[in-house]
């Protein structure tokens, strides 16, 4: 397997989640050990089988005003016209790009993964149409195509490079990282905004309930007695830059903070079932192995796992078997967290938000806890971080940073599997907060 030597750094993060608008409330919420999965009112849920979700709060007024001005000044009009998912994406992009301007328009790409786009807004139109309202305006349906959140960001930023949206169910966000990594390594782009945005909607909420895979309580990944997933909404965006661009920015006197490195991405497919994972975890193992190979890394270099960890009995068992194949006897001793237990399952964009969470963990030298009660399932004896953040192993020197890796996994309907490998930034890898920053 060939692998480009070009180093790809993560220099910006943005997030919207049920914990709030921004990475600061996200990190605070993740470290609290509590869950943001609770009763919600995005749409009436009384007739649903379950009644919890991780719904994003409204943006603070000052932020909404700032975002409106930002989108308007860019000529995007995305804030007023866009869907909720578009707004999540714009807000996360604005946060992620703070300090990274100006972007090279022709050498900037936007790579998104998502599942719902404007479905929440479209449902209102469908409802009226289905009830025979011939006068309903179909215009809101233009928010439904899945490329809209990425396009809204690209328009707001004046991007002229590639804009690519992946919708491979819940593997999408991590797959988008792979597409961006390829483009950056090849020199096709110098900067990439990678992520995804999804909102709660009746279609997905009812659909997962129809499959009987939603826990009536907040999801409890890898716990004994877990009963399913919990849905969430929001966005996660990462800014990726080539080492050449970072060097050029530093030559210009800009302070560039490298928050982590994206080392590799791997993909596979179960080719097994439309909604259930392969019980033996072979697909998960293959994607993880491919990600490590793409990173030029060894399983022994991995210090923690941010698992897909939906909380469904089948997923967590399959995923654990995959980890056991890749990491062998070390698997139970690896720190493991499941971000979904805190912010819910963002579907196509979950891999993006979990990548943000993974970078925050590496940067801060701790792994955020996985909320939930109950003992760890003896069938999945993971080193699940519980209660409070767990410190990452300290490194003796930055020379070992290349062996201080985290793996984040994402698996989707239809058996699509993806895994990404992240490396701690210099400095933070030794247990301290903050990445490399120099002018």
């Amino acid at each position, binding site marked *: 397997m060939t692998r480009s030597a070009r180093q790809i750094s993560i220099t910006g993060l943005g997030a919207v989640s049920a914990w709030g608008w921004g990475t600061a409330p996200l990190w605070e919420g993740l470290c609290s050990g509590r869950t943001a999965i609770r009763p919600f009112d995005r749409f009436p849920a009384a007739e649903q089988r379950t009644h919890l979700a991780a719904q994003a709060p409204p943006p603070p007024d000052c932020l909404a005003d700032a975002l409106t001005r930002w989108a308007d000044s860019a000529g995007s009009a995305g804030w007023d016209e866009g869907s909720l998912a578009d707004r999540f994406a714009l807000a996360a992009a604005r946060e992620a790009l703070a300090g990274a301007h100006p972007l090279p328009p022709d050498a900037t790409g936007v790579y998104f993964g998502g599942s719902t786009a404007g479905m929440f807004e479209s449902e209102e139109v469908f409802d009226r149409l289905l009830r025979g309202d011939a006068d309903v305006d*179909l215009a809101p349906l233009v928010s439904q195509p899945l490329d809209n959140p990425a396009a809204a960001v690209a328009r707001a930023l004046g991007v002229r490079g590639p804009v690519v949206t992946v919708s491979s169910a819940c593997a999408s966000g991590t797959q988008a990282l792979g597409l961006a990594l390829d483009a950056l390594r090849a020199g096709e782009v110098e900067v990439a905004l990678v992520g995804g945005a999804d909102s709660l909607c009746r279609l997905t909420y009812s659909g997962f309930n129809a499959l009987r895979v939603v826990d009536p309580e907040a999801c409890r990944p890898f716990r004994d007695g877990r009963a399913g997933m919990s849905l969430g909404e929001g966005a996660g965006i990462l800014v990726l830059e080539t080492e050449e661009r970072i060097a050029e920015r530093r030559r210009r006197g800009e302070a560039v903070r490298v928050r982590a490195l994206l080392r590799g991405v791997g993909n596979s497919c179960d080719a097994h079932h*439309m909604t259930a994972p392969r019980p033996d975890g072979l697909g998960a193992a293959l994607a993880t192995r491919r990600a490590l190979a793409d990173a030029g890394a060894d399983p022994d270099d991995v210090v923690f796992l941010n698992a897909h960890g939906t909380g469904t009995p089948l997923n967590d068992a399959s995923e654990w078997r995959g980890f056991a194949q890749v990491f062998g006897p070390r698997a139970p001793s690896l720190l493991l967290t499941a971000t979904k237990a805190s912010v819910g399952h963002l579907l196509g964009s979950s891999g993006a938000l979990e990548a943000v969470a993974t970078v925050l963990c590496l940067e801060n030298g701790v792994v955020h806890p996985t909320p939930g009660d109950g003992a760890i399932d003896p069938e999945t004896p993971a080193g699940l971080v519980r209660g409070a953040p767990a410190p990452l192993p300290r490194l003796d020197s930055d020379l070992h940073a290349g062996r201080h890796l985290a793996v984040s996994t994402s698996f989707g309907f239809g058996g699509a599997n993806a895994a990404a490998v992240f490396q701690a930034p210099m400095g933070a890898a030794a247990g301290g907060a903050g990445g490399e920053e120099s002018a």
Partner: protein
Amino acid sequence: MSRRVVISGLGTVGPWGADRAGLMAALTAGAAPLTPFGPAVGRLSGGRDGVDATPLALPPHARWAGVVDGSCLAPWVPGREARRMSRPSRFAVAAARAALADADFAVPDGGLDDLGVILSTAYGPAAVTEELLAQILLDGPEAASPFLFAESVANAPAAQVARLTGARGANLTITQREAGALIAVRRAADAIAAERSERMFAGVADEVIPLLQALFDRFGELAPGDGGDGEVGPVARPFDRRRNGLVTAEGATVLLLEDEGACAARGGRALARVAGGGEAFDATAPRCGWGTGSESLAGALRRTLARAGLRPEDVDLVIAGASGSRAGDRVEALTLRAAWRVAGDGSAPLPPVVAPRGALGALGGGQLAAAVLLAERWWSSEAIGPPDAPFTPDPELALVPHIGPLDDPSDRPGRAPGAPRILVQMLSSGGTASWLVLEALPKGAKWSDRPGAQRNEGDAE
């Protein structure tokens, strides 16, 4: 690219049927069969009561589309499988199996870790989604069908292809509207070139439903019928001054891509080589429509060619994405003209440009299938037609689509030596542009029928 990537199999499903002969006939005739919607799938689109009962109030011209006759899928998708799939999934599986047969490549019983899938879809499994929403919104969430939910996701066709062919490699679905098909092929070729996969399926699957027609019509994108009374189907006129909208068609095109060496080693035959590709965005485009960024798109096109080691003058044929849209065709033509404008010169002639989406429809991968077919048959005497098609030049676009057989380009002055090169371009509504560069085989290659090529009848249940 570190490894050379070839297309060794072509599977295509559309209103022309599920065979290449039908596709070539449509290209030669300049039109694929259009049919008016009959009783439609989904409650919104008419359901049991037929399209006349829909609240969508489709005007007559919006009732015409290139619709796949399901019977043509039977040789490729047995009934027991078809019952568990959406229509786009059926199209994709049929096209993927046809591509395997065309390539004369059999997947071993245990499947393959190094066979991946990258498909695209512009609008996903629309009918299934519509019916699922009807269940949820009218009958209550508990009425939601698990089967419909599983098939409503955009990646259902790619997942079904993997499941039914044993493709355990990467499995991605690109959802970048009509630009996605070329992105899918380019990314699949990249995966092989980077030695992450030996073989990849790549292509597109989409369906047309009355609701989609209504939405296109809401934004004035559909070509009106000639007679305006629904008796005569609409006609798309790419690049024509009289162009007034597109005609939709559904279907799927799936290619089998291989490492050139691996293809040759197993005795396979290349239909074309993937020489490069690229993407760009026109940030001036609205969410539904085209922008004015032809100059920047032209720059991205030139960079795409440069990455493939080519200059615009090295391109021998452009397969445009023009569909008859007034704004879309305009930005497409201006992009091509700008890309071929040599600095300080302005006189570089465009190579022949064809616009097969006018004949094959604006969805479903007809353009991609046509590109591969024309690469394979470059040296044949088959003509793109019809020769007597009326065309009124648009002075602003200054572009007349090519009619007739393809010429030998080797003697063209200034052209770099090599096999014929085809640039495939797609500028989709919403601002995304994608390009794919294909290389036909050199003159003298033999084009013979292969025993595994697409079947029309046979082993269906």
